[in-house]
């Protein structure tokens, strides 16, 4: 449930803008997430939702605007440092490391690994081994949670579309983020996995995770989100409870392709 706005928002995105060769893909978008909130982000194809995620996560540099997480300004830093600051994201088109196993995909995402320092591997044997054991344990718990355990030793390239979406989620979960940006985690997923994905997103949120969720499936939005933000042509079109939004004439118009 949305908490009253007595505290500063955890994620505070203001007036972001990005244009591609004259096309204003994101055009002055602001969005604020309170801690623990699960907010939906909807809008027609090409509305600029994924571009907004890329701006927030740092894969794209904004033309204008700012991104703050827990009071820290992230606008000027690269995507890897934003993740380290607690801002995790998944990709609309999953990007597994195909030649690595599912387990290794998740292990790669662990933060602050001693063994990632090149020289440490030549002396800190026991410390690295102990860290790896803990990471493997944690990774397996997450894979279990997402029903991927059975596949842990498979190269990630053999995963189905839905399993890839789950792997994206597993990788971002093990980074212990404060906020997760989920880009269409259920698009193209078969119905059997869909329920699982919805259920797991709800559970992650229940454990306290702040989530911004791009999704086209209104039923899923209604099941998961207390608040929805609607984007069209790079701008904020509407904002409110899912039931109200579904009735909003402007939103319906945007989906039909004639938003003003």
């Amino acid at each position, binding site marked *: 449930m949305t908490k009253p706005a007595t505290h500063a928002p955890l994620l505070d995105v203001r007036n972001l803008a990005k244009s591609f060769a004259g096309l204003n893909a994101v055009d002055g978008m602001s969005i604020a997430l309170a801690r623990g909130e699960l907010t939906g982000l909807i809008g027609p194809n090409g509305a600029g939702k994924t571009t907004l995620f890329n701006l927030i996560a740092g894969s794209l540099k904004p033309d204008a605007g700012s991104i703050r997480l827990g009071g820290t300004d992230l606008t000027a830093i690269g995507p*890897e440092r934003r993740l380290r600051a607690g801002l995790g994201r998944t990709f609309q088109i999953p*990007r597994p490391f195909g030649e690595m196993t599912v387990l290794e995909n998740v292990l790669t995402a662990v933060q602050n690994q001693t063994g990632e320092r090149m020289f440490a*591997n030549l002396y800190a044997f026991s410390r*690295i081994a102990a860290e*790896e054991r803990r990471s493997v344990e944690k990774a397996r718990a997450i894979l279990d949670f997402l029903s991927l355990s059975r596949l*842990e*030793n498979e190269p990630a390239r053999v995963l189905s579309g839905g399993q890839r979406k789950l792997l994206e989620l597993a990788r971002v979960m093990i980074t212990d983020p404060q906020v997760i940006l989920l880009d269409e985690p259920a698009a193209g997923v078969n119905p059997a996995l869909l329920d699982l994905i919805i259920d797991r997103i709800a559970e992650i949120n229940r454990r306290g995770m702040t989530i911004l969720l791009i999704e086209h499936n209104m039923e899923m939005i209604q099941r998961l989100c207390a608040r929805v933000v609607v984007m069209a042509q790079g701008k904020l079109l509407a904002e409110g409870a899912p039931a109200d939004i579904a009735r909003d004439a402007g939103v319906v118009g945007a989906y039909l392709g004639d938003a003003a």
Partner: protein
Amino acid sequence: MSPEFLAYGAFFLTMALTYAIICLGLNVQWGQTGLFNVGIAAFVAIGAYASAILTTPDAAGRIGGFGLPIAVGWVGGAALSALLAFLVGWLTIRLRADYLAITTFGVSVSVQLVALNLVGLTGGPFGITFIPRPFGDLAGNALAFGLANLALVAAVVLVTYLILERLVRSPWGRVLRAIREDEIAAQALGKSPKWLRIQAFTLGGAIMGLAGAIQAHFIGFIAPENYLPMITFQVWAMLIVGGSGNNRGAILGAILVWALWALSGQLIEATFPAGSQARAASLRLVLIGVALCAILLVRPQGILREVRTLSRHALGRKQPEVSS
């Protein structure tokens, strides 16, 4: 077998193994990280000259000549080459990939020119002589000297190989593989591709510098003409023949290509009249080129192809055999 033949065999193998070290360095850069270094000669030369300057006795008309122990020279050569690699990496890896290729090529030409012209430091075209040789007091006995040096260089190859294998299977190697597969995904998981690439490039440079130093001490003298772009070509051929991405392949490829190189040299010496030998020498290049093409046609990934590596601790639990 006669002692002369054995001594020659030891000499041949030792040379081949110094190339194997260079090749291991290139495998870190290209095989594991995808960094295109076309200036290998520069890193080998820097290692050789640095070590030579540190270890040779004082010589008239040349700066340096510090007379330090050979081991200090090796370390110094590796360190200086690492520094060069770090600078080149730091300046170019943030740019597009092709900048690295152009820059490394430029650096190798410059280093060669510096070696040729900075007479006061490098001895100019005559190079540096009287570089101390390991086991130099055995030099009277060619076989003992050859075998002792072979053992030493083989030990360096083994240690380098073991360290690199350990790194490949470490979390560091895992991130490197992730970056090679999908840089954007790796970044979104908090990994910093530029920094890891610079590390890998620097490590490769250090190994090449070490190899250069070892070569210099093994032969006992160096000159700018040893560090022409030819070396770069040879080492690339070695890695491609042996199997890029595979450390054992790098070692095997170095030995095979060096054998081809050495044998063809002898063949040319034996078959062509003295007058045309210089021109016939270019046949060796053609020969290596042909061998390269043949390998690429028959085994595009090299003799030993890259194996899918698991990090050491991610050897998963046993799966039930029957499932689904």
